[in-house]
């Protein structure tokens, strides 16, 4: 089964994936707030995050994330949109958004426009 692999060390923060997603889901509309992938910045690191299932309550299992010598807020890379994190919700309808692996196979549209190598399609069995 193909999956999207994210390598945050390669992300340059250009947000082209956000626009690719937006253009692909609503014909001819570019708006990062309608994208099902967002790039969050923490210090000098970028975390591309793909929308997962919606949860209607804040979780209780929040931990700090330690990568190397840096500690990050776990919320950053959490894929869910929740009352604590107002992302992946369509502004006009309030409808939660979720990645549907769109685009022309084999690559989802965000992967196709990602030039840094941060997003990559891999086979996972």
């Amino acid at each position, binding site marked *: 089964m193909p999956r999207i692999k994210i390598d945050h060390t390669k992300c*340059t*923060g*250009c*947000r*082209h994936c956000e*626009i*690719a997603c*937006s*253009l*692909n889901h*609503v*014909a*001819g*509309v*570019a*708006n*990062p*707030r*309608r994208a099902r992938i967002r790039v*969050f*910045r923490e*210090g*000098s690191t970028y975390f591309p995050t793909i929308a997962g299932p919606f949860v209607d309550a804040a979780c209780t299992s929040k931990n700090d994330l330690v990568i190397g010598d840096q500690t990050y807020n776990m919320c950053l890379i959490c894929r869910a949109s929740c009352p604590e*994190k*107002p*992302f992946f919700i369509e*502004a006009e309808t309030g409808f939660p958004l979720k990645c549907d692996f769109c685009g022309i196979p084999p690559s989802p*549209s965000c992967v*196709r*426009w990602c*030039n*840094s190598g941060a997003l990559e399609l891999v086979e996972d069995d």
Partner: protein
Amino acid sequence: MNGWTGRCLRVNLSKKDFHIEDVSPSLMERFLGGRGLGVKMLSEEINPQVDPLSAENKIIFVSGPLVGTGAVTGASCNVVTKSALSGTIACAKLRGHFGAELKFAGFDMIIIEDKADSPVILSVLDDKISIQPALEYWGRTTSEAEKLFKAGLGDKWAGRETYLLSVGPAGEKEIPLANVINDGFLSVGGAGIGAVMGSKNLKALAVRGSHSLTVADGDRFVQAVTTLINKLNSAPLTSRSMSTLGSAFFADRCHQKAILPFENFKAPTLSESKHIETETLPRLFALRSRACFACPIACIKKADVMGPLFKGKGMAPTFLAIGALGLNCGIRDLTTIAMANVICGEMGLDPLAAGGTVATAMELVEKGNASKEDLKLEFRFGEGDDLLQALTLMATKKGHAKRIGKGGQALAVEYGQPKRFMGVKGIPMAPFDPRAIQGMGLHFATSNYGPQHLYAYTFIDEVLHVHEELDPLSTEGKPELVKQYQDMTAVMDSLGLCNWPLMGLKFKNFVPMINSCLGTEYRAEDLLRIGERIWNQERCFNMEAGFDHTHDVLPERFVKEPLLEGPAQGHTSKVEEMLPVYYRLRGWNEGGAPLPGTLDALEL
């Protein structure tokens, strides 16, 4: 409307009010947007002879129609005003994400009128427009101001989506060398704009929004963008050189052709003294690539800079920093150059203008025209500490640095040595020696924005040989080349595209993307015609501001003192020979004024 939002925010700072206007579609059709539209609006709204630092001057922040739509490298926002340094029209190119967020906030442009009586910040956040007092921001460096503003938003998520454009202490003190900074990126060509913003007591602009931009033909647009990304990926310069070192890789290419300046462009130099080891950059600074909005090239390099004055993250040296702050001041140490560049970013100084000014001061001291006691600072070529100290004092207007803060030309004139200032129209030269690269030389002399390379990058063909293999030392075909690049750059700036993709793509490659986005039927020639119209509009503004052919000259040194060795040995700039041809091509008279027929044909 496709690409454009069609809305303009007009803010009056003294009355503290604002209103929203529609942008006329015919203007957008004739001037595209961005730089073109900004220049047209400014020409209509202010008297070109106005004092740049007075309340009558206006500042226009304007994004191009392709910005934010996902068009490849569509990120550029322009700041148009009358420059406090040169008195010509000024147009800074902002990198980063500010331009795109301005569009998502629902505006093509923001026009700032009049001046506030105390420091303010203008914010357009999710359709809430406010002019808030900013006393606690005054005096802070650009990164401090950004942190403080984002912390003040209260919501940790909102801060992530807010983009800030600000001036540093240099701008607040109305120093004509000041630039505007956004998101830690130095803008290109912003010399003198920071001071105008400072004179209006406008510390910063903040934008955020959730408006959608529409694209005329989504499928065709996505296809066109994908094609361009693949093309950029297969071109060696954009896929490798720019991505690994950023623009710093030009330094080596320029060194081979003897184009780099050294110690205020003095002629007799040893070629070894100019060699700078750019390939050591990744080792020295642990470079991290950062990209502007929707850019696959990612030429901006962030670095950890450690020095006595500053420890932290900043921009790694770009070509401009290496040339203007480094070699032109005789400094080859990359760590010092990086420090100087970071100070410029934090203080809001323009590296080109500040470097050129310091180099002028250094020459005045070296030649005995000015003494150390006069300037109250040491100015020795090759001494990193002198440069760093001068930059810091210049920006804060502390001590006796007021003199140099006025800019290189004012300084050289004050000591009766105007010939020691290497610049045109009051703006110091970009780090290209016109004796060794004739096309750039002609552009430097004729440019509406002073001798800044990014308004016609003929270097691409003269040295990098991307589209054509031209000899940089020959004058053949150069007036045509310069005109073509000047027009092309005007179009790309106006649309909101960056200039770097021209290192991998031809101008005509962009046309399908432009048309599918805007729903137009432009051919490449039509667009170049619009570029010519913009260039002439800028020229008319400068003519009315009091500039003519007598200002289209290079400093005497480039015409009279030949290079003594290296590949360009014995060469001087032949700008006087090329200038009449260039004027004829442009349809201008000998005085450099556009002929009535030319303006009619361009519908001006």
